[in-house]
């Protein structure tokens, strides 16, 4: 028991356990689930597919992790995905040679620029004007869909561009390129937050913004920065989503990705109250969500009914992570008084996310 206990208490234990259970269940249901084969020098198989499809979610969730760790939330990422994808596809569709590499780079830079402006807008609303994050980003979530449709003029822009398509479907070193992009972004964020003081500064701002400011941290600037980073991540995810289907749909691109991203972050153990963040947990959370989606597809259940399963997983993961639930559970099991409730956090958690 003594050896298992620290393992059970590890923050990544439950996410890993859930992922493992899902993989095992899949393998039992369909023995070929985990098999990977080499075809044309590329690796193919369900695990690779899960990794490739989860890449956009991982990107969005990375940005979301930073935002949530400052005690905020970014609902606008789905709209930013749609806008950046729409801008890039519009530029490419107007170009004389859609396969020109330089032109695609210009398109990406332009779309990224637009996304950064939108992220800065969110950042200013939250850090300078001081609007509650959920409502500040709700503005762009609602209006952004309209903007994306305005850019595409309500149409679906289809493009035929090799370099752009590669962002979503290309291969590199036998693996899909998207995996490397997501991995690169994750490593970059991890390096900046965990190898420098930035991560600790972000956590301290999330813990108490005013106290951090008095301690000499430019809290406003940090909060501003996380929204810009989140928008940049969302933009790259938007490129992947549109590249996957070689078309930009202002209405459907990135729809509900913000909810999935928030879920991934919460499953990964980051509290919505802010003050702590776990990048590895977030990536695991994104993988869990994508595995769940793939599982449900593989079982021939309609995507909408998949939401039912998602609801069950969300509630289950949240319950096992909720301190109040754990306290009740352990009290019943061992007959000992529960550990003291986390009272300093309590008031914070009652604030709506």
């Amino acid at each position, binding site marked *: 028991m003594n050896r298992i206990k620290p393992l059970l208490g590890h923050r990544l234990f439950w996410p890993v356990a859930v992922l493992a259970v899902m993989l095992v269940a899949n393998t039992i249901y369909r023995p070929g689930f985990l098999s990977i084969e080499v075809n044309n020098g590329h690796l193919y198989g369900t695990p690779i597919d899960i990794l490739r499809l989860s890449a956009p979610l991982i990107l969005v969730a990375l940005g979301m992790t930073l935002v949530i760790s400052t005690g905020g939330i970014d609902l606008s990422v789905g709209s930013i995905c749609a806008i950046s994808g729409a801008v890039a596809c519009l530029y490419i569709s107007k170009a004389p040679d859609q396969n020109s590499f330089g032109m695609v780079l210009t398109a990406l830079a332009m779309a990224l620029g637009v996304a950064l402006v939108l992220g800065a807008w969110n950042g200013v609303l939250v850090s300078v004007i001081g609007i509650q994050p959920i409502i500040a980003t*709700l503005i762009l979530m*609602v209006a952004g*869909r*309209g903007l994306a449709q305005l850019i595409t003029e309500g149409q679906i822009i289809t493009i035929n561009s090799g370099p752009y398509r590669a962002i979503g479907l290309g291969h590199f070193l036998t693996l899909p390129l998207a995996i490397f992009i997501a991995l690169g972004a994750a490593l970059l964020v991890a390096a900046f937050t965990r190898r420098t003081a930035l991560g600790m500064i972000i956590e301290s701002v999330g813990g108490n913004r005013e106290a951090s400011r008095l301690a000499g941290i430019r809290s406003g600037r940090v909060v501003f920065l996380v929204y810009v980073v989140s928008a940049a991540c969302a933009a790259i995810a938007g490129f992947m989503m549109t590249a996957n289907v070689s078309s930009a749909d202002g209405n459907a691109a990135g729809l509900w990705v913000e909810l999935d991203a928030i879920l991934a972050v919460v499953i990964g153990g980051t509290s919505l109250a802010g003050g702590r963040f776990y990048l590895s947990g977030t990536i695991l959370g994104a993988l869990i969500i994508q595995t769940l989606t793939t599982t449900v597809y593989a079982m021939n259940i309609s995507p909408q*009914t998949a*939401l039912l399963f998602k609801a069950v997983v*969300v509630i289950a993961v949240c*319950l096992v992570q909720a301190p*109040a639930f754990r306290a009740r559970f352990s009290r019943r099991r061992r007959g000992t008084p529960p550990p003291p409730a986390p009272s300093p956090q309590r008031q914070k958690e009652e604030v*709506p996310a």
Partner: protein
Amino acid sequence: MSTTSLTTGPSWAKVPRRHVPVLATLALLLVMYGIGVSQYRAFSNVQVVFNVFIDNGFLLVVAVGMTFVILTGGIDLSVGSVVAMTAMVSAWLLQSGLPALLVLVVALLIGPTLGFLMGCAIHFFDIQPFIVTLAGMFFARGMCTFISNASIPITDGFWTTMSQYRIGDPRGNFVSVSVLVAFAVVLVAAYVLAYTRLGRNVYAIGGNPQSALLMGLPVGRTRIAVYTISGLCSAIGGILLSFYTLSGAPLIGVGMELDVIAAVVIGGTVLTGGSGYVFGTVLGVLVLGVIQTLITFDGSLNSWWTKIVIGGLLFAFILLQRLIGIRYK
């Protein structure tokens, strides 16, 4: 956060601060209506106003429920899905031949039950309302498609009567039954919030849950109650929607929660809780309805302008609340 005016002197000259957002919404509504009347001759027809109510009756009911939740400082993302689920379940049960009254009762029970469960999860396990109601949203939406992937038509006599019954004056202007139901819900909700113990508790918890607890107010019971109320309102909204469309469609009301939240915020309710009125929510819903009517009348503007305008209005009203110094956490 009491409704009695704390200001002294001539009451008409000094508007209490917390009334400013509602008055601003009212002014905006009048200006928009004025623009409509001055631009389009048919706009001054009374039926245009009635149509706004007919088209948004269900939204109004749902928004009233959301007002309760937001006043306590929570949020309910599940409303759109619960509306769809209620419509879907009633269409499905009617199709399988159950009597209309029984279906009505069953359909009206589902929403509050889900709301009650979500409230319990939020209160007893200390999970954020955002996450719990998100799971509720997924669950309800999943149930819709679990029942059927396609839209189910409703042919029941009671439903079609309700849908087609017109209450009007001799000149031909009319409202539907849904509008009356919506008004009834609004009046009951306004009464509960302003004059009952439950209503006072809602404001107190929204103001400061810790203080409310120390004052001995039943925080847990109230919190569970508001999610149940929101579920009930969504269920009523779902029934009204099924009167309106005479069908249950699995994908109806997607994104409705955003419209509802926007309406509540435009109506002057502060998202951190403790300040706002049902009357403001009514105005907020009307603003959304008039925007849609204006865009329909214009004809050259596309539907996406609705979203952009709503976003812009959200921004303007939040800025306004900020400027007049209503408390933000």
